[in-house]
């Protein structure tokens, strides 16, 4: 009995120590360790050029991760972010190929994001459908609906003189444009999380929805707002990707790698799936962490199958850690709480 008690006590201490630590700091530590190890073992890893490539490729993931973090912070989740990023590019390019001006086409894509965000928010906050299920459905609906309703081609390229192209190249203040965009998004989100009542309310809802409701917070509006922001940011990430690659295909799946990368970044970065917890530092660190992993694996010529496995394992570890650090109350957990 005493032994059992002792064991429990020590376990609690290890856990509480980890819990007290900002996961962002932890991940930064991991990143440093990985940089050192990677630099020692892998040729061409620890060069400024390579690291700037990693940063540039993590820009879009970072934006989607922040989009996801807005929702996860409020104890939701948005599985339609990957679809939204893809569709934003598709819609813009399809409309441009129909002769719309670039500005109008981008506006239309953002309009689609607006509608998606509202529908997601409505389903989750007003109707009360579990967020995972609702956004899974809307993501699928968005991809399929845009494909059959709007698209006329299977492959689109960005015109070389398009303004959007510039998002993918050049630099602002010496920082690659895409990374600069990410920094702007981080700065705005930080302001929103720390200094606006909206940001504090999201956190309050995620921490304890009942209390937030009793406080008289405009629950539904805030939740809908978070899905709206998530959809708009995802669309923006879609533009970043489109600019980088110069083309968009229509054969994406609902569970896109982008979605998983963003989810992993969010969970590793310490934004708990049980809501209310997390920092932008963590999300940014998580994004860089997974980008570095992918980069290391690619540099070591690992096949995509093994890369998939490695990524999935990272996410498994992250959610196991999350479940351990921030357990759900098994007794009061609703069975349908997916």
């Amino acid at each position: 009995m005493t032994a059992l008690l002792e064991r429990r006590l020590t376990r609690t201490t290890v856990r509480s120590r980890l819990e007290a630590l900002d996961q962002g700091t932890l991940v930064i530590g991991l990143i440093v360790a990985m940089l050192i190890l990677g630099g020692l073992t892998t040729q061409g890893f620890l060069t400024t050029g390579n690291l700037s490539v990693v940063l540039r490729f993590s820009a879009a993931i970072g934006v989607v991760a922040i989009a996801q973090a807005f929702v996860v912070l409020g104890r939701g989740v948005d599985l339609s972010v990957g679809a939204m990023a893809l569709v934003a590019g598709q819609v813009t390019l399809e409309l441009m190929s129909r002769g719309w001006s670039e500005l109008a086409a981008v506006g239309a894509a953002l309009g689609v994001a607006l509608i998606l965000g509202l529908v997601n928010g409505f389903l989750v906050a007003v109707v009360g459908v579990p967020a995972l299920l609702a956004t899974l459905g809307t993501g699928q609906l968005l991809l399929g609906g845009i494909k059959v309703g709007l698209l006329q081609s299977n492959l689109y390229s960005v015109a070389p003189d398009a303004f959007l192209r510039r998002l993918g190249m050049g630099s602002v203040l010496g920082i690659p444009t895409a990374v600069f965009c990410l920094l702007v998004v981080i700065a705005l989100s930080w302001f929103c999380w720390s200094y606006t009542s909206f940001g504090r309310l999201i956190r309050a809802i995620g921490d304890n929805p009942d209390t937030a409701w009793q406080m008289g917070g405009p629950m539904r509006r805030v939740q809908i707002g978070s899905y709206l922001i998530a959809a708009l940011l995802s669309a923006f990430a879609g533009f970043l990707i489109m600019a980088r690659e110069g083309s968009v295909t229509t054969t994406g799946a609902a569970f896109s790698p982008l979605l998983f990368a963003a989810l992993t970044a969010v969970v590793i970065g310490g934004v708990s799936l049980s809501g209310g917890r997390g920092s932008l530092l963590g999300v940014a660190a998580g994004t860089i962490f997974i980008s570095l992993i992918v980069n290391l694996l690619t540099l070591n010529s690992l096949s995509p199958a093994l890369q998939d496995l490695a990524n999935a394992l990272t996410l498994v570890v992250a959610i196991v850690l999350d479940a351990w650090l921030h357990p759900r109350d098994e007794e009061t957990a609703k069975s349908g709480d997916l």
Partner: protein
Amino acid sequence: MKIKTVAMIALLALVLTGCTSGRPDAAPGNAAAGGTVSLTGGVPEVVQPLEVRQLVHDTMKDKRIAFIPLLYKGYKITTEWGVQLQRGFESLGSTFTVYDSNFDTDQMVRIIDDLIKSKKADALILHNPDLNVLTQQIKEAQAAGIYVVVLNMTSNQSGDVFIGADLVSMAEEITNKAAVDCKADGKNQIALINGPATDPWNVLYEEGVKTAAEEQGLEIVDTTDSKWQADLASQQAATMIERHGADLCALMVPWDVVALPAGNAVKTAEDEGRVAKDQVGVYAIDSSSDGCEGISDGLIRASIAYDQSGIGTGALLAVQQLFELGNAPGSQRSVAYVPYVVIDKTNMSQVTFACYFGS
């Protein structure tokens, strides 16, 4: 108790005797395709021109040809073929239908399955995504008396006719081209951004590049699988440039859809000064109008154009021949390759089958 046992045994015996394995017979079905067949064993040796024309038209009339590409709408390669097929078959009075599988293998398998089971086609023109996927479907179609023509992507199971590019030779040719450029720069490292391991295109291409690289004394420093995704291709290209730095001189990418993002990555690296201008060239295969744009924009240094509309026309001819000769499906198999040529900025406007639009 005894009665129960006996009853159980009886039931089991009944069930077992009622089982059939459904294994198809080894000999292919002799039944020629449905419809009225006016020609068997080919055209008569001596015949009036008008009569021959009538015979061919009678043979091809109301034949149902199904074309099942990986992807159709807006996809230039397959539409290039499809357009030729469409024009040809319609003028002969046959019914030509495109079944778009939308890059969804499951969908493709189900479409083919449906066509065989409900006997909605007399000939199938397939575009095979994977060496092993359609093995059983090709067998089943032939057993059901349906001719199978496979385009451009080989399958481990042969159809009646294969028409496509001689990818190994093409890969060798473009590698030789890269070798010339590299040697001029005094470099010898090349890297491959390839497709999935079981993709027929991927397997042959890698073989060709390896052979030629060995002959030319080039070193293949890296091989990756882009899964034919633009996102991955550009990421891999960027990583390779970083990793191999100043020694790299060529990225070999066997399809312009992934070669373009790879070229974009190279261009970005050049713009940011991470790699010397014109040090790394992207060498592609296939050149639709998008690919040609890439060449003229300097994203792709050289490519191999092969006769896409020729593949369409070839399939059209092959199907006609199959019906005219009237041999049982699966009884004879043949392979035919189309012409190709290396193109770059200097000659691309002079090659008739380069820079096709898919119409």
